[in-house]
């Protein structure tokens, strides 16, 4: 299988907060890679780096072999690569003042001006139907539940038929039944298009459900664990601490004493 996303020797920090050091990762076409890590370990930052939303201090991110941060790359070429990326944000980042349908026609208008408005509307409605919220297209995001907002975020990310999905904690804060449904939905849509997915979560059950391969952010780098089964049987102390929620281990002492 060909490598679709390649991260090489990435370095990134916020003032006073180093996040990545010599971080590398390869994701193959059609693969679902799940990245686990404690809060504050830099998962969302990595998603933003892959989506080209922020720049690394050093290192490269190649998508289909194109170095997305290389200033010599013509903007149009870069734009063409990013058209293939659909992103679901942790906090949805929906357009509050647009209704459900308009939330999905808007990105098409911006990125696919050649599509007619009738086609955009048709596509938007079929996506809403697909994620199970198609019967109330004129409601606004704040009029639907959290799970439905997630579904809308996923539908929007699919509007441009992305080959790459970057999903930042797509089930955060949802109950387990809804989480499982949403994860199933994502997998179904991903498989239909043989899309490649980079999924961020801190939910071990979701990693098991979704991941072809699982990694864990530790020490400013990605620890490659392997399949979900390998994750569960791993004897690596950091993996064990995270998966089992142990209060002591390489991630530090989380014990909250009562005295």
């Amino acid at each position, binding site marked *: 299988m060909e490598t679709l996303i390649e991260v090489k020797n990435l370095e990134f920090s916020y003032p006073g907060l180093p996040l990545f050091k010599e971080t590398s990762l390869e994701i193959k076409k059609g693969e679902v890679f799940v990245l686990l890590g404690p809060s504050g370990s830099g998962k969302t930052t990595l998603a933003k780096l892959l989506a080209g939303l922020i720049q690394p201090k050093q290192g490269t991110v190649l998508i289909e072999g194109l170095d997305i941060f290389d200033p010599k790359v013509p903007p149009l070429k870069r734009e063409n690569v990013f058209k293939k990326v659909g992103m679901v944000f942790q906090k949805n980042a929906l357009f509050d003042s647009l209704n459900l349908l308009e939330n999905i026609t808007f990105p098409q208008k911006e990125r696919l001006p050649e599509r007619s408005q009738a086609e955009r509307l048709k596509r938007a409605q079929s996506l809403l139907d697909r994620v199970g919220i198609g019967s109330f297209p004129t409601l606004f995001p704040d009029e639907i539940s*959290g799970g439905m907002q997630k579904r809308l975020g996923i539908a929007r990310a699919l509007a441009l038929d992305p080959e790459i999905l970057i999903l930042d904690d797509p089930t955060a804060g949802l109950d387990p*039944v*809804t989480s499982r449904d949403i994860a199933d939905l994502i997998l179904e849509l991903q498989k239909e298009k043989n899309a490649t997915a980079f999924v961020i979560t801190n939910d071990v*059950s979701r990693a*098991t459900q979704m991941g072809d391969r699982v990694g864990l952010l530790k020490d400013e780098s990605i620890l490659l664990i392997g399949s979900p089964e390998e994750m569960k049987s791993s004897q690596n102390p950091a993996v064990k601490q995270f998966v089992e*929620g*142990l209060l002591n281990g390489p991630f530090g002492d989380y014990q909250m004493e*009562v005295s």
Partner: protein
Amino acid sequence: MITFRDVHKAFGEKKVLAGLNFSVHSEEIVFLLGTSGTGKSVTLKHIVGLLRPDSGNIQIDNEDITGYSEEDFALIRKKCGYVFQHPALFDSLSVFENVAFGLRAHGELQESQIQDKVTQSLELVGLRGINEKYPHELSYGEQKRVSIARTIAPGPSYLLFDEPTTGLDPITTNAVNTLIFKLSRKLGVTSIVVSHDMGCALKIADRIIVLEAGRLAVDGNVNEIWSCSQPLVKSFLEEVRLSGVDIKRFDEENPHS
């Protein structure tokens, strides 16, 4: 003891509680589990009078609070400490002032008594020497503990936790869950924990109540839940199985704590 009898509550067309019945006994740790929108948080809000039932009645310590006035509820709120999902600290107040806030609001204590209670409450959750810090200088875990200290400072006999671990990573989840257990036992209070997390419930709950469509669906101890065949319970247990973690009871792992 807290008892709900045939409690109904609707918001417009939407019926959230549809004849809810359950009891929580003294010094129990009870988890209220259910999917979103089944009325778990709405139930907690009824206990402290933030919401009033459309019909049915609610008793706390054998007193019917259904018809209580706002003033009457001031006493209930002193008795029932509410821990919000997010720490919800006052950004512009120091840790000390955050914890003292509720004590001052009740208005019955001398400054020296407030000092003592704040220090005791912070020590109880394992925080020392951070009185003068501000919320933004604290880690999430510390903020969570300050919010719990603020809740326990007035000496409630009930602790109501609204989704204390939702969205947290597994290590922080376990740390917060363990804290709820230790604190409840140490203070001898009754705790009601609204949650989605069956794993947490199986580790520390004395009893697990599962709500579905605004009604009690299942009420049982941990062993009964493990062997329960109700579809929603099975679905929640499936989540535990997916995580691959072997659930151990906290009190069995730590018999002397």
